[in-house]
């Protein structure tokens, strides 16, 4: 807590001196992409220790049939932020239950992560990966048509926490489920009421943080203009405080010590960061549309069109992307941008690829 306070004070001083979202020059750029992925898959990504973990989701179309897939890869990096060996496909989810969308990938340190394999038409499985033998643990997987839907998940100390919304047509409220991810499914599982009713995309869990904005009170109405932040535990969420937003909330993200929100502000969008423990609002970006967002390692990154901005305090331009940015991830040292280009990953391959660039924050 002392470190948090000192950091918060320092951050406040620096923030006062630095204008938000200003950056004249990109940081020193890598000369080549770290990775080239075939196709334009939907991407969810995060850093975990010295690894980049990313999920790639797409439809697989074969001559007579097709199915949906999400593959989550772990790409180990060197100390200098280069790729070390080939990424390993560590979690593989296949379904015909409905289209899969970008997975929610949340790093848990040491290359570990939690993934919500999202899609439409089914309750997304939540998987923790992995133990020392690279064995995954399925934290949530329910095939019922009215099964609870995972909105957010993260590892918080020794516990994995999952925020579950009631399934379509099912009664009951939102729940916070806590479990030990390294043991058999269902072991030591605690289930507590969650003090809100967030919509998809408006909830985040991180070590010591539950952050959310309530969804529309009525169909068609805008979501809440207040973000709530509390401390999750096996018993629920305590110490909830409200963070007023300038307009309806569009996104909520969190990582250790930081909450990031995006909200409508007039005709545009405003992105703000809140550092624990003060939770003082600092606007880091203003723009016309909701950008791709990431938070991690005390840093925030976003992609505004082809401009990739990131920083531990204010944001600055770190890269001009070669194409539309599908996703960003950020750590205290690196920004990963997943950029869609119309060029095959390999000679003779499909005409589209996604290039993954790793750029230093310094």
């Amino acid at each position: 807590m002392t470190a948090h306070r000192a950091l918060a004070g320092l951050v406040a001083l620096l923030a006062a001196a630095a204008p938000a979202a200003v950056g004249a020059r990109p940081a020193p750029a890598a000369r080549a992409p770290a990775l080239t992925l075939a196709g334009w898959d939907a991407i969810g990504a995060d850093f975990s220790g010295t690894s980049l973990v990313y999920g790639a989701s797409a439809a697989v179309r074969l001559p007579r049939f097709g199915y949906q897939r999400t593959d989550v890869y772990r790409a180990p990096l060197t100390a200098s932020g280069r790729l070390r060996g080939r990424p390993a496909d560590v979690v593989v989810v296949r379904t015909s239950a409905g289209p899969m969308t970008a997975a929610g990938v949340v790093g848990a340190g040491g290359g570990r992560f939690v993934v919500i394999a999202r899609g439409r038409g089914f309750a997304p499985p939540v998987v923790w990966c992995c133990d020392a033998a690279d064995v995954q643990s399925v934290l949530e997987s329910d095939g019922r048509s009215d099964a609870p839907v995972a909105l957010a998940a993260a590892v918080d100390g020794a516990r994995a926490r999952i925020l579950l919304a009631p399934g379509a047509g099912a009664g009951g409220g939102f729940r916070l489920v806590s479990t030990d991810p390294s043991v058999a499914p269902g072991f030591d599982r605690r289930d507590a009421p969650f003090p809100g009713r967030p919509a998809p995309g408006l909830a985040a869990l991180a070590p010591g943080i539950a952050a959310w904005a309530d969804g529309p009170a009525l169909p068609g109405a805008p979501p809440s203009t207040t973000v709530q932040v509390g401390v999750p535990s096996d018993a629920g969420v305590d110490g909830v405080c409200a963070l007023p937003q300038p307009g309806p909330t569009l996104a909520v993200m969190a990582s250790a010590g930081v909450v990031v929100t995006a909200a409508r502000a007039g005709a545009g969008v405003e992105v703000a960061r809140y550092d624990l423990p003060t939770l003082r609002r600092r606007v880091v970006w203003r723009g016309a549309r909701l950008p791709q967002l990431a938070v991690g390692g005390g840093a925030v990154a976003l992609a505004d069109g082809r401009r990739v901005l990131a920083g531990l305090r204010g944001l600055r331009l770190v890269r001009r992307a070669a194409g539309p940015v599908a996703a960003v991830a950020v750590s205290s040292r690196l920004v990963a941008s997943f950029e869609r280009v119309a060029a095959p990953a390999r000679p003779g391959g499909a005409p589209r690829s996604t290039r993954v660039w790793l750029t230093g924050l310094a």
Partner: protein
Amino acid sequence: MTRRAAALVAALALAAGAAPARASLVGLQDDRIQTVDGPELEARLDGLAATGVRMTRVDVSWADVAPARPRDPTNPDDAAYRWSRYDAIFRGLAARGIGVIADFYVTPPWATRSGAPNAAPRAADGAAFAGALGRRYSGAWPDPLNAGRHLPELRRIEVWNEPNLGQFYFPQCRKVGSRYALDSPRTYAALLAASYRTIRAANPDAIVVGGVAGPVGDTSRVCASADSSVGTLTFIQQLARQRPPIDAWSQHVYPIGSPSRATFFPSWSTMRALARAVDRLRKGIPIYVTETGYHTSYNRYHRYFVSERQQAAWLRETFQQAARFPRVQLTVWFNLQDNPYWTGGLLRADASAKPAYAAFAQLAGSSPPLPPGWAP
């Protein structure tokens, strides 16, 4: 076709061990049946019968029946054997009019150096147990609980379960110099051949079922390590070189995609290719699909899942596909009920019914009675 030609075809078919064309029998396995006793077992047997199913598959755990090394492993009455649970299962199934195909696997610690349950056994040890199983359930063995009566007959015995997967049969490959070479077809062929002899010696009417192959088609990375899985086609091809005796081939089929459209091997669209491969072992022998199904949620053993509604629709389609192949005489849905590691059940883990339960019950209820040789 003239009457004489038809008679000739029928005679040839019988000579080759092929059954006359008819729809595949509808089976359902309950993998918890061999884990419970007493009233709980009776309840599960009632639950199975309530689906209307007339054929089931039972996993016989060799390690459970023979926790210690028998002095005379070919003698079912050896003091080391613990048959009472299986006596109750087979008695209970027969009483409910449900026919059985049984597979045996799970190596007892005494039969292996590693003590691992998936260790490939010495062929002689495995075959001795197969012989004891065949003898006890030959239909002529006295029932220890009912004087003057006999234990039911197990007409069909599968030798092992998924011996092409390292998870159930290890090693798949052996190190030769600096590389791994495929070995499981050779050791499995020895186990199958030896078991064939002991089972047939115990019951000349028994049908010895080989393969029981796990649903792996890809062989591109075979023998990357000792526990690599081996694709079915490679496994059959290598097995055929050893020429083991066999009466029927058992295959597990878990398609990715609908039964009528999936094209990965093994799936229903590749059944003819499978049949051609099986012909290399013994021409025209029946094929039993002793496991098939669709999972309704993700688990790490089966990473492909469908919705519960799809599962019900594709269950119907599975048996429609099976009916297209007269050589596929039996198709067993796996499993009756979900558990955390397997979500292909007709019932959820809390015993509530998925839509597939009603679909299966309708199908099983409208199936004709078991033909002779299948009925208990």
